[in-house]
């Protein structure tokens, strides 16, 4: 009996000390640090265009995380990535302890966003549309979410002046408008062409061109003969696509393209993906640049 009680008390002391050590450790770790809460909020941006706007508004220091579509500017790549903005993880977002999520209206899944909001993190959904007005709206919404309305107005003034310049050059555009085909490739060998209802289509129209393929919406592989029949004057593609397809020469010699006016005159325009298709703060500049490429007549006069 005596032995037993001894054993029990030893066990008790042992347990007590283990718990004591663990408690001490735990309280040390989680004691709230006496830092006064700063005014600037920690932000996670979900959408490449939104991240770009946050940078343009000089609020990038507040960013604590971005999604995989945020690729510009270069320094954004050093921030923690929370995954694709339509397949988010609640705990991943919470673990970066943000105060606010600023996201594209396509972000999700909804249940994940609900879980994040239930921990007291606020979230702002930005409405998007692929027009000049949509870009200005988008910047306004982000600026308001960041409580930087003045910076938003300044940025918008710059963009509006770019769009005005584009509008002025419209008078000099030759008729009929140049016919453009947009090529897109994410893997070697598979080439897709933009139909209607895409960012590429919107940019081509904004810059005073005609998208030659409007029979379908989205990006799809296209039949070679249809491409020849569409007879584009210009081939528009992104830097990534050019790299994937292995250079200008390869593209000119593609069976569906080699017979088109664009390939014969080597009218090929290469622009960066997010710059051309992002509908972020650089859209005005990108549209202006594209329009000058499509209408050499305006380029000569402005230079």
């Amino acid at each position, binding site marked *: 009996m005596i032995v037993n009680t001894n054993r029990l008390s030893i066990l008790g002391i042992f347990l007590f000390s283990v718990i004591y050590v663990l408690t001490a450790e735990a309280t040390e770790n*989680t004691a709230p640090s006496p830092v006064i809460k700063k005014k600037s909020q920690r932000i996670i941006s979900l959408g490449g265009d939104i991240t770009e706007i946050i940078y343009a508004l000089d609020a990038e220091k507040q960013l604590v995380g971005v999604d995989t579509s945020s690729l510009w500017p270069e320094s954004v790549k050093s921030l923690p990535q929370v995954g694709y903005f339509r397949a988010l993880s609640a705990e991943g977002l919470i673990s970066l302890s943000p105060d606010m999520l600023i996201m594209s209206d396509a972000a999700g899944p909804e*249940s994940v966003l609900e*879980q994040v909001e239930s921990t007291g993190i606020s979230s702002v959904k930005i409405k998007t549309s692929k027009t000049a007005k949509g870009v200005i709206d988008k910047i306004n919404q982000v600026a308001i979410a960041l409580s930087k309305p003045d910076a938003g107005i300044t940025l918008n003034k710059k963009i509006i002046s770019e769009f005005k310049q584009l509008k002025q050059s419209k008078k000099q555009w030759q008729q009929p408008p140049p016919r453009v085909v947009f090529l897109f490739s994410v893997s070697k060998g598979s080439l897709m062409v933009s139909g209607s209802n895409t960012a590429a289509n919107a940019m081509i129209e904004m810059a005073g061109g005609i998208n030659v393929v409007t029979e379908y919406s989205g990006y799809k592989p296209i039949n070679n003969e249809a491409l020849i029949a569409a007879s584009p004057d210009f081939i528009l593609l992104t830097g990534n696509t050019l790299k994937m397809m292995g250079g200008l020469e390869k593209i000119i010699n593609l069976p569906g393209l080699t017979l088109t006016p664009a390939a014969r005159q080597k009218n090929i325009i290469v622009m960066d993906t997010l710059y051309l298709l992002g509908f972020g703060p650089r859209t005005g500049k990108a549209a202006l640049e594209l329009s000058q490429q499509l209408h050499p007549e305006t380029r000569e006069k402005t230079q």
Partner: protein
Amino acid sequence: MSSTATSLNESLNFQQLKIVKDSRKQMTFWFLVISLLLMCVSSLSIGAMPISTGQTLAILADLVGLQLPWEFSFSQETVITSIRAPRLMMALLIGSVLAVSGAAMQGLFLNPLADPALMGISSGATLAAVAVIVLEATILHEFSVWMGAFSLPISAFLGGFLATLLVYHFALNKGRSDVSSLLLAGIAINALTGSITGLLIYTANDEQLRTITFWTMGSLSGISWSQVITGLPFFLSTLYFLPKFSRALNALLLGEAEAGHLGFPVERVKLLVILLVALGVGASVSFAGIIGFVGLVVPHLLRLWFGPDHCSLLPCSALLGALLLLLADIFARTLVSPAELPIGIITGILGGPFFLWLLRRQRIAGGH
């Protein structure tokens, strides 16, 4: 004299073997129960958000009104109670349902390669899910507005269930369905639904394509208590009723005619097992997308370990399946945090090489 001695000897050996196997089964069962409990605690305390095991226990104790000496913050509590806990439950339920269903299908088809996908459940569910994702804005607009967040899970469930019923219907011949016509009907329905899915994918835009890709790789991200509760009746009915067919499945190992002679209503057993599998797997696909390999590897492993007796194979499969999916989910949540890997990728990476090793070992041992 000597012949009786050998037969006695043999029967003794057989007895010994049976005892060894029985104790092996018992040991496996309890080993799995204990590891599952441990895995539950570690699953709750591992994740992108740093929470110690002590804090986890304190948060759990706090729920029942006990105070433990570990301090925790509000957001840590929310992460445990409304993100990790429902996710843990879902992983347990789905893992066990997939493994039990796999075991039952392998028993039913007398084929170690059989899994629920064979009956069109996955491809039917994929077709329905892809249809909802692609046509949400156009043809199915009213449906998706009406169903809200449930439009995808419900259609996936119905799609899987319907495809299974179609396979069964086409395999029926004068009220009987033999295994080979079930297999062939399954292949045909899989090909058909696969092509229609392909057609829908062709019309999808970039964002829809990515959503589809992620869906087909499975995920337990964003699982909430309301989803767990919605799925519970489906999962529990599969988990409760399927093991009741253990003896019938054992009899089927001898062949369909033999099982019939032993007094089992073979056709009814077949139909009910298929329906229960469709119910459970359909529900799991609808909540978590396609999660491969659990249903294939888990029963296989256990069969190698203690033989094909379904009375212990089914319960142990449930436990090991839950254990495997829980482990896979921990990897999925933490490997690329704060982002997340699709869980189907993890089960494939864990399961694939293991399965190959199993295959080799079996061939060396002179099996099939």
